[in-house]
């Protein structure tokens, strides 16, 4: 009974852990470069999910002070009613970073493919070991 409770209580963290290890598995175990990159992206996304879930609050709303709230004195604006905006802001940046990363990675993957005419890592390594440079 207890184990269900632990899992259910923090289900957002469990999902993030599962996603993270899925991504890590992809990076480590897959042979194809594109699959590795997908794994890498899942890994990054899991961390974004983790941050975003941090900021959630029970019954919290988006952290924008509405027209009606504006006239209230500061003391009546309770931070507990709003979600924490900071992790969201951070994750906006992190998403940009991950998009840029995947962009650079795909560009490199294209270069690799043009050189070795394959994206399977073991084949590339075999070609490197045999001195293949792609220049004929």
């Amino acid at each position, binding site marked *: 009974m207890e184990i269900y409770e632990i899992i259910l209580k923090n289900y957002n963290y469990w999902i993030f852990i599962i996603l993270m290890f899925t991504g890590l598995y992809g990076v480590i175990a897959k042979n194809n470069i594109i699959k590795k990159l997908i794994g890498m992206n899942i*890994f990054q996304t899991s961390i974004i999910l983790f941050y975003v879930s941090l900021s959630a609050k029970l019954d919290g709303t988006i952290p924008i002070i509405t027209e009606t709230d504006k006239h209230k004195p500061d003391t009546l604006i309770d931070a507990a009613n709003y979600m924490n905006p900071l992790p969201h802001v951070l994750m906006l940046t*992190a998403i940009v970073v991950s998009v840029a990363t995947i962009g*650079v*990675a795909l560009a490199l993957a294209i270069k690799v493919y043009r050189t070795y005419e394959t994206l399977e890592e073991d084949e590339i390594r075999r070609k490197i070991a045999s001195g293949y*440079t792609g220049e004929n």
Partner: protein
Amino acid sequence: MIHQLPGLIVIVPLLASLAAAASGWVNRKYPFIIAFLALSFTAYASISMLIYTAGGNVLTYHMSGWAPPVGISYKIDALNALVLTAIQIIALINLPVSNSYVKYGFEKKEAPFYGLYLLFITGLTGITATEDAFNLYVLLEVSSLTGYALIGMGNTRSPFAALNYLIIGTIGASLYLLGVGYIYIKTGTLNMTEMSLMLPLLKDSSTIIMAFCLCVAGILTKAALFPMHGWLPGAYSNGPNASMGIIAPLTTKVMIYVLIRLGISIFGVELFIESFSLSNFMVNFCAIAIIAATLKALYHTKLKKILSYIIIMEVGYMAGGFFLGNSDGTTGAIIHIINDAAMTFCLFIAAGAITSKFLEEDIRNIRGIFEKMPFTSLAFAGGALAVIGIPPTCGFFSKWYLIKGGFGAGQYLFAGALIFSSFINAVIFFRIFEKSFFSDKNHHKTPENLQAQNINTNKQISEAPLSVVVPLVSSLGLIIFLGLMTGKIVENYIIHLI
């Protein structure tokens, strides 16, 4: 003015990188000039901040006037003033070297190249200057992404090596990001100073222990501590000469800086070293890393591969020195960041000059460097002696502190590993001197000699261009100068940190 410099030192190269990339449309010479001006400014800024922070002064700068915890603040103390100066000086000295190689592999791409170059320096500068843990992550990715791009422009093997680097590097940075998230859960701040006030109260929290492990694992992966080094040799030995002069000496060193910053400013040395009782384990781990990397370097015969493993070995020196947890070890690690930047810079440019002239990577097939490239070989020898740790080069003095720290902490395995690696480095470098520096003047006509003579006579090899030789010789001067200044550096800067 001085109070604006912590912000300007990041903003100027950032804007200059955009300007350099755009100016290529107007004239192909402009990017270089813009990069030169920007880096001259950052070098000036870093030196004036270095002078300011001597004696323990601290500079704080709030970006856009927002004070922490809301805004991002930049803080320059003795530690990052030293590292910043090392970065800027090397970036500036290396610029003419890059300029002379940029036509190989970057023809008609000068503008993007210098854009990336400046952006890379922006990233490293920001990592060093920032006081915000998340800002550090962003700038880490800025420098990494530009680094992947710069490495991927090398020979045909480099895109694959860069891709490997990218995957492992991204995992490392993500781990760090996750660690920062854990700290944020507990402390509610991203500002390092505020974290360091709260963390000692939370030292029993399992969240903080987890955060610590994640941050350290992430940073050490990016720093390429053995056995997380897999990405480094391929990336560094295949990357283009134009960019290796900044990537090889600076990337791992800045990561070690982050490690030390984590220890000194975020977790606090007490928490970092003692409460987690990791010191003993990590120091032995680093000792084994040093030995393993040294032996790997011994095994290889390609010049840049050897140097890559030597960088990995030096990471072991610095990480181990810091985990010793005593003042000598930390001093050694901090000095070694600067010294090692100078010596790997010297070695990598020299190796780049040699391999690009001889069109050969394998030291067994290179002969007579000394005769053909006297200044390059002189600088290479100086860098090599610094790695071995021969006085009065700077490598000796950092090794002095590290060994002393090892003795002081009773970590004899670590001290022994340092001495052992000195011996093996001596073997590695004197093998290079013996084989490649002298030409074969003897008259034994063994097949090997004949082959070597053919190699020599077939090519017209001369000294590297002035734009490479001058930086090389000045880096050699830097190696000796830093050695003689060790006492001053320790007394004016490092003492105030520990």
